[in-house]
């Protein structure tokens, strides 16, 4: 494992001078795998990885879930090497959710390095897969999630795959809620969007496809379960979803049995074309936004470091010794060492072929 740099509290990804004038549209695509907790994201990535290896077109795989205990696929870059989730909880006195966000934030500061690695290795793989944290909003409603998404999309073709648990989606209210959430992600990222109905071995997702094709049918199913209060709104929202479904790519898979994965690759290829025509023109705007977010994050981290210093100073005063600056620096440094920042500078080359626990 590469020796890690210990960043000072004000270090963040400085906006590097832009050498490229736009995304490299010919580069292999990255696929952001999103979905509700329990939808089967990790299993999907596992199966897709195996599928691609079998066809001698291996993927480059990145795990962005800091709290996962076992990663059941050979992973090239693992956030858990950069930030130790349990240590973050301990060292910063955080609960599980706070720790996930902090891990993502810390990863985010190094993400330019990850992009470099992806670009460097692009010749050697067919697609880059990114597995995201279990709780979807840690990614979709966080600054670091946005920065990561925008960094990828500004660099090369990026596609979102939204995993749906078909078994749970048989409930029409759950289905509607899930699809509205998918639509919200579409508007958030503005990236090509593929809905993956997973767990097809448990429940055939044909019901979902029928609902998507036939508004009346869905509305009937919904009527049985909804309260009268929601009637009108519910029907109007069904119309919204009806529009959403037009031109929406869907695939039905079973990550357990492997069925449907040919369709996955076709959908990705088609989405890359959509990326070129729709996303690239928006690139400049997104890049400007990302810079703003980066700066805001940098400022926030500096403030937090100052806060930490303030707490530290208060503690010192309480214990009766007015200490010097060096004490604080040393403590911060050792704290950071313990949470093991670093390890992204070289990816796990030697481990890439091995299943990691």
């Amino acid at each position, binding site marked *: 494992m590469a020796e890690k740099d210990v960043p000072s509290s004000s270090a963040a990804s400085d906006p590097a001078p832009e050498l490229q004038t736009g995304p490299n549209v010919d580069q292999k695509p990255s696929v952001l795998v999103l979905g*509700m*907790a*329990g939808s089967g994201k990790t299993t999907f990535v596992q199966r897709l990885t195996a599928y691609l290896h079998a066809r001698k077109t291996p993927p480059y795989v990145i795990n962005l879930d800091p*709290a*996962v*205990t076992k990663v059941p696929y050979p992973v090239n870059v693992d956030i858990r090497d950069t930030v130790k989730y349990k240590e973050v909880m301990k060292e910063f006195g*955080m*609960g*599980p*959710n*706070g*720790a*996930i*966000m902090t891990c993502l934030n810390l990863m985010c500061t190094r993400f330019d390095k990850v992009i470099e690695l992806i670009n460097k290795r692009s010749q050697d793989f067919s697609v880059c897969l990114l597995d995201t944290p*279990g*709780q*979807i*909003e*840690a990614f*979709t*409603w*966080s600054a670091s999630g*946005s920065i990561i998404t925008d960094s990828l999309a500004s660099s090369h073709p990026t596609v979102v795959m939204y995993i749906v*648990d078909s078994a*749970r989606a048989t409930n029409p*209210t*759950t289905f*509607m*809620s*899930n699809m*509205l*959430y998918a*639509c*919200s*992600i*579409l*508007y*958030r990222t*503005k990236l090509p969007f593929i809905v993956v109905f997973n767990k097809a071995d448990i429940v055939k997702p044909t019901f979902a496809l029928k609902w998507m094709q036939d508004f009346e049918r869905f509305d009937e199913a919904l009527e049985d379960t*909804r*309260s009268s*209060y*929601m009637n*009108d*709104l*519910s029907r*109007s*929202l069904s*119309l*919204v979803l009806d*529009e*959403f479904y*037009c*031109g929406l790519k869907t695939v039905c898979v079973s990550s357990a049995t492997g069925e449907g994965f040919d369709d996955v690759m076709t959908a990705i290829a088609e989405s890359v074309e959509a990326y070129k*025509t*729709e*996303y690239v*023109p*928006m690139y400049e705007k997104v890049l400007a*936004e990302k810079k703003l977010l980066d700066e805001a994050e940098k400022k926030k981290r500096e403030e937090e470091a100052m806060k930490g210093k303030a707490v530290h100073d208060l503690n010192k005063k309480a214990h009766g010794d007015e200490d010097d600056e060096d004490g604080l620096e040393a403590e911060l440094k050792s704290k950071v060492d313990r949470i093991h920042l670093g390890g992204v500078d070289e990816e796990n080359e030697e481990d890439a072929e091995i299943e990691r626990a």
Partner: protein
Amino acid sequence: MKYAQLVMGPAGSGKSTYCSVMHNHCLSTGRTLRMVNLDPACEVFNYPAVVDVRDLISVNDVQEDEELILGPNGALVFCMEYLVQNLEWLHDELDEGEDDYFVIDCPGQIELYSHLPVMRQIVDALKSWDFNVCSVFLIDTNFVLEAEKFISGALTALSAMVAIETPAINVLTKMDLLSERNKQLVDEFLETDTRAIVDQDETVWNSKHRKLTRTIAQVLEDYSIVKFVPLNCEDEESIDQLLLTIDTTIQYGEDLEVKDNYPEEMDPEQE
């Protein structure tokens, strides 16, 4: 009739801050808000909670359990399902009196609303205990400073709303942290016809999704229950305005007025 606000929203949207701001505001105006924490994964909050789900079960308890090997999300789901199995505990703890007004801090994870029946079950229980319930869905304004992101926020709120089926007020938080320019931008979103805003931006993506965007904008126009209310925690008037909107939605205060006018019908057991 009792009243409850369910405070929900993504992590970082400002739920706990909202709760303490509301509590303090009402203290100063002589109103009693009874605060409840229903988030088993929450770490710290600065309002006095009359009920705290962590007295029943917490994510820490679950994660420390050696038999259950659960990650943070599994632990949260476990806690919520445990709560649903022990709703009498909640009922006892609430110990609600007539006209009591509760503010309930809920977990943020959308899975608990759309994917699992737990939040729905809790809402249904509250209704069965004679509560008028209203959702207060919070979104950090900083995430919606663009027409499409604004729509994204509205859709997320809707996603939760259709799942638990209560009236809802959507709140844009952290208005006090916005720059002047952004404040104006947000005001524009809130006051103008949503469609007009979206039509401004001519990009390939917008053209492709124009019809969808218009349909969504139509819903936002037609259903005032989906509108957003800005909240500036530093501004008493802003807090007051929001509270009034929520009270109206929840129909709080209507019964009270009747009681004032007909004092002979007032329940002698009440203060």
